């Protein structure tokens, strides 16, 4: 998995490419820590994520919790049908901010 980080002011755009699973999610967690310093909004662009496991979901939920503590926010954009289905199945669709294009 590759991860692209791009900062725009206090917004951090995170674009993982590949699968977010038990192997790759800890790496994403580790690499996020220094990136979110001073950030008020994290946007996960999941366009290039083809699979997300429970481990991947927990990074999204953890980031959401961190941003909430900081009075900031976390959004998910460009989630494909598979990711949307996982979010729906796990009940996280309404618990997280998911921007849908339809």
């Amino acid at each position, binding site marked *: 998995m590759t991860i692209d980080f791009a900062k725009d002011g206090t917004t951090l755009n995170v674009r993982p490419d590949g699968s977010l699973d038990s192997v790759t999610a800890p790496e994403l*967690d580790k690499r996020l820590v220094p990136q*979110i310093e001073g950030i008020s909004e994290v946007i996960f662009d999941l366009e290039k994520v083809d699979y997300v*496991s429970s481990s991947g979901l927990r990074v999204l939920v*953890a980031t959401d*919790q961190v941003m909430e503590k900081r009075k900031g926010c976390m959004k998910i954009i460009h989630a494909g049908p598979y990711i949307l289905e996982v979010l729906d199945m*796990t*009940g*996280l669709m*309404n618990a997280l901010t998911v921007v849908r294009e339809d």
Partner: protein
Amino acid sequence: MESKERNGSGRENDFLLELRLRAEAPELHRRVADCVTVLKQALKSYAAWFPSFTDHSALHSMDVLEFCNRILGDQAEKLSPRECYVLIMSCYLHDIGMGISEKDYLSFRDQLDWTGWFADHPEGDETWFIREFHHEFSGLLIRKYAALFEIPDEDLLFAIVQVSRGHRKTDLFDAGAYPDLQARDGVVRTAFLGAVLRLADEIDMGADRNPELLFDPSGLTEQRDIDSFGVHESIRTVEVRENRIVFHVRPKEPRLIPQIEHTVEKIRQTLEYCRAAATARSDLRIPQEKVVLEIMNTEE
């Protein structure tokens, strides 16, 4: 949705319970989904009582649910939809007692002989008492807030309360406390579900599951807490395989090895108990037969 997965790494067991519940009982699945939003907030309150604890928020619940899926494997197909619902809800609710409000604590403690406990533990404090009895507080809170959690009937409420309480200390062999509940649309084997939950909760110890994002160990000041976190940090990951549970450990310091071995031994005992309870009290099994400790060198 493609539930059988693609390239190994345990993915084939991802979301089995959730998939089955959504396919077989969409109304119960909707109730879980609605609940997750509420619980995501409610479960964060553990930090008010236990600021130095590792994560017990909804992330821990998600881990426990994932471990249940891995422990069960294909047996998830043998669970009734009501059992899937009970187990998923219990995964989310079993530790809710850790975040009990002051008001609920004061109203519930009389049911737990708190005066007797404090007489026996003169050095005890409220935090210790809550930790000791958090499974009981969870049961009491689930019952009190059953409508908020949209639990649809008394049988399911009873099962969720008992399975959640059962994640520690309660007697899973007791057929009165842990009966099979028969319903038109399937049985709920509470003892088996309690055994799976207890084991799943116990093995959620991997450092890979305590997000660096959320926990800063520099705030720990008590040596006991520092050592406890050191043990946790040393357990790099916990892997549930078809017939065993593997602890991959890289000791932070050699002096922690006896504590790590002690921790793993306790988990072996829990596995034995849960396997025995599952076998004695149901027609289902916990297939994992042993706990294996694999110690990696620090250079690996």
